[in-house]
């Protein structure tokens, strides 16, 4: 009744090519942004911000990165966590070498190192496809994970073997380190994620995005259209790793905030991000957010939500049940809706368009 395109005429191509051609969608996005920037910080307590919202934002960014590679370009990767790690350790080295440079600039720069490493490990994609490539990305995962432990230069020879996040400020407010408040860290995360999502959306809606999808859907035909497969795939690896790298740097510097950050970039994390992409929807940016929200919140719901509802569940059991649930949900989603939560969302919108008179 309220959600329909009737009466909205597009008079130029620019309007027709907009990412959200419907006025209602644009209003919706504005409301979401308003809630994210104003509502959440006002309503949420510190625990909510630092244990729910910041992880959600970090995972969303990583999921967008993997979605560009797997969902848009059709190259499956099991090494996302390793590329996140490259971003985190690059950021650490950068803060050591350039203590005067703004931390946000450094976080954004550290993604570039991740992108470079991603391209190196993407080179095998020239000759190998599908499952074989998945195994090749495992090489990246295990090699980099090994390097994070065995190359002490990366963590400045700290005794703990972990990244020690230094305190850095933005406009006088501490952004990283122990003194940074959850609100500040949340705002920085949100700003970065919104900006990078906008860039990702621009890329996938333009020539590059079409090339990626062409490679995904029919690589031979894409090459006969004049798309250089090599370039398209390597750029996808670079962009994807850039997003993963920035997410990794954010994860250590804005979420963990120092300490206990040893050994987080494991294959488990890679899998979790892959699940976010599958459940959220391959080839959908909105889906990346939905998948991240779902997978990231599931353990918290299990741990705190169910006992609050009166279902007694020990911590260990909760973890096992989470595993089973995630596994079962993946299978159910693949069977019922291979396009994930994003497609359910679309179907919902379609229903809404005809509501309340569906015939």
């Amino acid at each position: 009744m309220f959600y329909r395109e009737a009466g909205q005429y597009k008079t130029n191509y620019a309007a027709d090519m907009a990412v959200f051609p419907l006025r209602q969608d644009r209003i919706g996005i504005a409301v979401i942004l308003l809630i994210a920037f104003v509502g959440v910080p006002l309503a949420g307590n510190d625990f909510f911000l630092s244990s729910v919202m910041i992880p959600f934002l970090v995972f969303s960014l990583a999921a967008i990165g993997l979605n560009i590679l797997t969902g848009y370009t059709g190259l499956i990767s099991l090494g996302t966590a390793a590329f996140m790690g490259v971003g985190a350790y690059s950021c650490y080295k950068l803060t050591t070498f350039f203590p005067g440079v703004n931390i946000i600039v450094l976080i954004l720069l550290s993604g570039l190192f991740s992108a470079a490493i991603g391209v190196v490990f993407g080179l095998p994609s020239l000759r190998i496809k599908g499952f074989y490539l998945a195994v090749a990305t495992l090489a990246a995962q295990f090699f980099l994970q090994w390097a994070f432990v065995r190359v002490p230069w990366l963590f400045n020879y700290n005794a703990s073997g972990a990244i020690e996040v230094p305190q850095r400020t933005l406009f006088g407010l501490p952004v990283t380190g122990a003194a940074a408040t959850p609100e500040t860290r949340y705002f920085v995360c949100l700003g970065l994620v919104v900006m990078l999502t906008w860039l990702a959306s621009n890329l996938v809606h333009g020539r590059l995005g079409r090339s990626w999808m062409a490679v995904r859907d029919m690589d031979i035909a894409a090459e006969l259209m004049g798309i250089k497969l090599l370039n398209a795939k390597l750029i996808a690896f670079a962009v994807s790793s850039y997003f993963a790298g920035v997410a990794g740097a954010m994860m250590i510097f804005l979420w963990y905030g120092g300490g206990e950050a040893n050994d987080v970039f494991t294959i488990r994390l890679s899998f979790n991000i892959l699940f976010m992409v599958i459940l959220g929807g391959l080839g959908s940016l909105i889906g990346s957010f939905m998948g991240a929200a779902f997978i990231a919140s599931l353990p918290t719901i299990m741990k705190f939500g169910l006992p609050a509802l009166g279902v007694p569940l020990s911590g260990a059991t909760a973890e096992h049940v989470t595993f089973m649930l995630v596994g079962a949900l993946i299978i159910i989603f693949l069977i019922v809706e291979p396009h994930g939560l994003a497609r359910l969302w679309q179907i919902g919108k379609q229903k809404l368009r005809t509501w309340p008179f569906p015939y």
Partner: protein
Amino acid sequence: MNAHSTDIAGDPVTQKGEALLSVENVSLRFGGVKAITDVSFDIRKGEIRAIIGPNGAGKTSMLNCINGFYHPQDGRITYKGVRRTRVRPHQAAAAGIARTFQNVALFKGMSTLDNIMTGRTLKMRKGFFWQALRHGPAMAEEIEHRKVVEDIIDFLEIQHIRKLPVGKLPYGLQKRVELGRALAMEPELLLLDEPMAGMNLEEKEDMCRFILDMNNQFGTTIALIEHDIGVVMDLSDRVVVLEYGRKIADGTPGEVKTDQRVIDAYLGVAH
């Protein structure tokens, strides 16, 4: 417009321009299997050239050689007066050779619009930075190419499926979208691999109209593989006939139709 007469079947060959592409003594083997043996022919600027022959005659392999997907072991292919050596498919595309496929090879997850826009890839120049911003020059470029694509959509009469994902379209429409995608490349040489396979009469007539219009309006040179002999006879200026990887006839439809070897190849030889 070139001087293509509407009297198609009897069109004299000599009116067409010089050779756009010539194939000389090309042979292609896969291990011990000979797909093409010592085939020579040429395609002249502005003509519609048909390649016919029974199943397994090497027609698709021939197209694959022309656009660089396969590399023949022997012989030479000259395009626009330049002899090519080991051309890669995307280089052939950049040189103006476009192609449709026997089994529709569309990008199934993308809309009709995006599929045809993909054909404009080579014409788009704006770099990564502008694309990431999707404003200013990149947007202007998108709009400029969108206009071209809309013209093609109008030409092929597929306005109504503009935003639908192509994977779910009926076969005839998919073939049309594929033609549009090739057309968007503004090719000088268009290779059509069985553009009318599996179509009903009406769809075939539409497709014939599009092919003729393309040839007339844009002056596109067309090489076409087709099994429907009636269509071939009506559309093409010249026909080359392959059988078991060898050329058995070459000439105007009229000449080919009466060639004894062609008749034998299609109807079998009485022993």
